[in-house]
């Protein structure tokens, strides 16, 4: 169980770092609770960079549905885990 938690934390960390790059903010400015609307730079324009940066970070190509659904770090976690898990 603890390994899953550690893996989740590592994944959340990668996601937050990708978000920081996309939004040109320091990583500490992206809390685990970050969401569209809660961060000034994460507007619709910033979201395009977020999607591009996440795709590059994980080597994935998201569908438009997925890209639209990524409204928070938690949403991104769910989608990325699903894609990486292959299930």
């Amino acid at each position, binding site marked *: 169980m603890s390994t899953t938690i550690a893996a989740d934390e590592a994944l959340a960390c990668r996601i937050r770092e990708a978000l920081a790059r996309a939004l040109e903010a320091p990583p500490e400015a992206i809390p685990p609770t970050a969401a569209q609307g809660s961060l000034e730079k994460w507007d619709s324009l910033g*979201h*395009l*960079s977020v999607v*591009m940066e996440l795709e*590059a970070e994980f080597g994935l190509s*998201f569908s438009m549905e997925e*890209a639209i659904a990524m409204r928070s770090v938690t949403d991104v976690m769910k989608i990325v885990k699903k894609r990486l898990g292959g299930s």
Partner: protein
Amino acid sequence: MAAPAFKVLLIADSTIEPLARFLGQGRGDIDVSVAPYDQVFNALAGDLGGADFAVVFTQPHKVSSEFGRALQYEPFDRAALGEEFDAFAGLVAKAASKVATLAVVTWAPPPWALPASGYSWQRPHDVSRLLAEANLKLAAVADSHRNLLLIDQAGCLAGVTAFDPKLWAMGKVIYSRPALEAFARQIRCVIDAIRGRSRKLIVLDLDNTLWGGIVGDDGWQNLKLGGIDPIGESYALFQRQLKGLQRRGILLAIASKNEESVALEAIRNHPEMVLRIDDFVAWRINWRDKAANIADLVRELNLGLESVVFIDDNPAERDLVRRSLPEVLVPDWPADPAMFPIALYDLRCFQTVHVSEEDLQRTRMYQQERQRSEALDAAGTRDKWLRSLSMKVRVRRLEQANVARAAQLLNKTNQFNLSTRRLTEAAFADWAEQPGHAVLTFEVEDRFGAYGLVGLLGLSTIDGDRPYLTAPFNGDSHILNPPQGAVLRIVDWVVSCRVLGRGVEETMLAVAARSARRADCSRIVATYLPTPRNKPILAFLAALPAVQRCGDDFIMAPQDCHVPEYVSLSDPSGQEAPLYVDDHRR
């Protein structure tokens, strides 16, 4: 002193903000801003926000509604279509006069309507041909506006999946991330070229870099090069590509661990060598440390380490050079020779804004330089050598015929450069035209050949003229003390490092002194503006025999400045007067 950031403005009729991020990444020296979305016409008609460089991205169906109709297989008006593109080209031409450098990305079909079939080149809906014709209109404008560059969209995006439908649907971004990165790379290298930071010399290893195999072990007859062998073909293609760069003005040199005679024999005798001895400006083929060899080569060629690229298949050699000479660009090099041409292309550090006559002659000029140094060795003493050179210096005013080369010299020279002013051709010509200003150009020749235009003086009799607006200035009162007479200020003093140390600098100073006398100036003042790279001119100024130094101001009296006796100075116009600064005070 940190240089001010280079201001880039992106103008687009699609969402281009993500490109700003890729362009600015890791480049504190570039400040990128984006004009309001889809306001291309307004942005071009406006003041362009004081940018140093503006880049315009447009979609052809947004520039021309008639083209949009053609794209949709609707009936369209061919003449009106041409007029719409003409109007845009005219707008671009006007905009070019408001910014130092303007780049326009050439038109490509929208990615969701890529015409690949034969019918796209044939009437009635010949969209491929219409776009080609529209791009030719841009090229025609670029012909007559030298600060207007075209960025070839198709070339830039070759091999890239350029469109991401989801990004377009979500935010009107018409380029995928790889496409935006490709544009960012290309634009950065154009910026480096504008700022005179392109690389000028490629130092190459030989074994398994220029040919397959080890010449010392295998013998030149057994090297893999050309022939029907796929590996040999890869090396031959790589050499052809290097040869193209060399013809365009990039210098080639060799740093190889080999017996010199064995390696040179291979270069001379192998029937499939594309690059021959004459294509290299210098070489170090020995068993010494490559970093030391490169440093030595660069000294011989009078270049800076920051203009060098080192290519070697051996990671240990690359690592050594990277650690010892951090200014040298040492790219990771693929193990597979088939990838060499792409690896070279991907460096994108050899951009120039224009290809000049000097670029095309560069290798030959450096070879003449080698003969000169050999003559120096033979002549024994430096003095005898200088006399043996038969130096001829020709001075002219800046004019239409030499302004392109003069601007290139002004913008590319780093070492012997008093104030490192960077100006476009138009701005430089305009400065020279102002009352009390003159720009003199110097062409140099010796018995080994012509160097071309290698020196520049920007002179001013206006007391307030400073080489650089941001330059700190003090001591105004005692230098420009009116009772002691007026001052001729040297604003720009640029000499190509290829001619340094053979009397050209002194000759130029003597010409400035003539101008000073003619304008009744009793002193000449040169204000040194330090940069990380212009120590050579400081060393020259500080060593002048009759110079008075006051901080970064160097003050000279005209009567102390003479043409060295081994230099013959001529003025092809036959009349002296036009060369000198107008005395605006009369």
